């Protein structure tokens, strides 16, 4: 027992203050700052190397729904027009088109409407469904429940059954072999319900886009309330997205 207290004391208080300013490693790649003004005419170095065709040029635009935050474009750009290391971990959006960033201020996720907030604002139960998730997103969703990120303090919890859930968190490109199971889980979740698409795979297919055994992410039959970009999104990104949705940021 003494040993337990000793190691508890040694650990200090590991839980992050959130919301608030966060210190992330210098090289952490989050939401990019895009500066179309710096592009040289005719240059398409970034678009040529992008593994997921997330970049359009003239004018320069990056689709964060496809972006894997892989550093290829930043490395290829001679003008430093795309910078992932500005420390922006906020990369959640309500509408698919808002994920396309072009240098204007990012349209980060806004809160649910009054009625949904009164239902879920202080208590939200989520069921996670991995549908081709490489386990990267699953690992970061798991990390949300540890003592550092401590999702539970915000009244948000993962539950075992869709019937106990207020919404689904979906990760992975939705494999053909998981389509039916995902549909059943969605139908089993009582209305009104939320859907959160986590990671490039669930939003666009990610690195597996257009392969025949998957669906390029969550199909239009399952309406998405929150898109969390990343490969995988940092736990802080996930926390930020969920709290924005609940109107608590």
């Amino acid at each position, binding site marked *: 027992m003494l040993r337990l207290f*000793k*190691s508890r004391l040694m650990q200090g208080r590991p839980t992050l203050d959130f919301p608030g300013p966060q210190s992330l490693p210098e090289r952490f790649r989050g939401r990019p700052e895009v500066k179309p003004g710096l592009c040289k005419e005719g240059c398409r170095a970034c678009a040529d190397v992008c593994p997921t065709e997330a970049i359009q040029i003239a004018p320069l635009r990056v689709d964060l729904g496809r972006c*894997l935050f892989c550093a290829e474009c930043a490395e290829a750009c001679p003008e430093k027009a795309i910078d992932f290391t500005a420390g922006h971990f906020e990369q959640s959006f309500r509408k698919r088109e808002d994920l396309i960033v072009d240098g204007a201020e990012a349209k980060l996720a806004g809160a649910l409407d009054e009625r949904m907030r009164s239902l879920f604002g202080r208590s939200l139960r989520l069921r996670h469904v*991995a549908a081709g998730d490489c*386990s990267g*997103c699953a690992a970061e*969703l798991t990390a949300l429940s540890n003592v550092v990120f401590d999702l539970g303090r915000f009244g948000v919890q993962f539950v075992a059954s869709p019937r106990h859930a207020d919404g689904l968190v979906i990760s992975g490109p939705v494999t053909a072999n998981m389509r039916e199971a995902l549909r059943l889980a969605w139908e089993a979740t009582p209305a009104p319900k939320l859907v959160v698409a986590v990671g490039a795979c669930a939003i666009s297919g990610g690195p597996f886009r257009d392969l025949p055994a998957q669906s390029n992410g969550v199909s239009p039959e399952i309406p998405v309330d929150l898109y969390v970009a990343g490969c995988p999104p940092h736990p802080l990104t996930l926390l930020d997205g969920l709290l924005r949705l609940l109107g608590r940021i």
Partner: protein
Amino acid sequence: MQGGAEPAAECAFANGTAVQLDSIPGFPVSALGEAARAAREQGRALVALMPLREGACDHLLLLLADSATGRLSASSFDLGGANEFPSVTQAWPAAHLFEREIFETSGVTPVGHPWLKPVRRHAELGDAGAPPHPFLRAQGEGVHEVAVGPIHAGVIEPGHFRFQCSGEEVLHLEIQLGYQYRGAEQRLVSGKPASRLVAAESIAGDTAVGHALAYCTALEALSGAKVPLRAQSIRGVALELERIANHAGDLGALCNDVGYVPGAALFGRMRGDFLNLLTEISGNRFGRGLLVPGGVRFEVTPELQARMLNALDEVEPRLHAAERLVFSTPSVVSRFEGAGAIERARAEELGFVGPTARACGVPRDARADHPVGAFQFAHVPVAVAEDGDVMARATVRWLEIVRSLRFLRDQLSRLPAGPLRKDPVALRASSMAVALIEGWRGAIAHVAFTDEAGQVARHRVIDPSFRNWLALALCVRGGQVSDFPLCNKSFNLSYAGHDL
């Protein structure tokens, strides 16, 4: 392939090198059984058994690894136009899943296979092209069946588990996977180089470094490129950070599964400490973006080197305190001991790898047996335990954390000088390269083939989970259903890595 009798008939090569496809010796398929028996008797490891070519399965390729000589070997077996071959699974059970895979992808039947069921395609999943195959079913008084999944009760990947039980006792568990099948291998040979690399990092997300390293090593073998020493060292550091983070996370999760919250909290947090160190180097918690064919993308500056060593100084005492706490808590130890035990003979004949095998006393570790990169110069002692149970797997993981920490300190205090990467060069045509990398779950194998034009035409991936899932199914036999989550977590296998 006849042991010492015909040494010239074998094409032997080192891990991380390439051979010309036409230098692989050919035999009639009737010799396959004898070759498998001989290899098993000599204590070799089965790297892969697969069609030599994609599409028409007219030859089988047998890839072996010999830890005694540190050499790999390849031989091919001509099916002689037949659509079947005599199964070698009875002679060498390690071949069981490879034969099922051959059957599934090519339709060629391994005659005499004891459980010839598709691996990733299933009629039950609405796949009309897949041959239906039932679950094994126990019958008798009081016998009942428990079906779990594909969606499990937790934040975890999907798979289906079918238990045959008598009361609380598990008689048999059959694991059906394939739900995660994305076709990852197809992406490894199509599209831009960057698209292939990110797909390699996404085979199993908690092993992004391990798979990226195996992918890059295979390509470098085909090009003959020598990776700069500094890059080899940084790659080694990243691989061991990945190992420590996952082992620490799983030790925490094991505590959680036996209701010991302090252990879960302590180890769960420290997993993050190591992921943050990976972020310091690579900008991503899983080390994505760090490796590129020819080297690494990011520098470890002297300041970063010092910062990482300081971080290790800070975290190590906390790790040791957590270890002492967890392994001296009777309620933890009594649940870990004896749960999910596997005999050494089973682990050997079924070809289990990584901590799963080492916890059964099988001292197999690609870092020691077939070292490439930094592991050629810095030896990491192989961690072994004897009992094969949850306790043994936890012990092996802990020992590996300690030894990897030593490796990290060693590498970080004397990183070789020099460039970070070498520019890509053309690949050798009509060749095959094999890369065996000891990821945190065990040996990751990547086998890449080039065509006459020197383009990668085929890239096969064998995740350690592919070899180890049967270990979970076997270890719960005779135990209680309620021990399943604990046993499962002690392996923490990858569904996506198996399904690809």
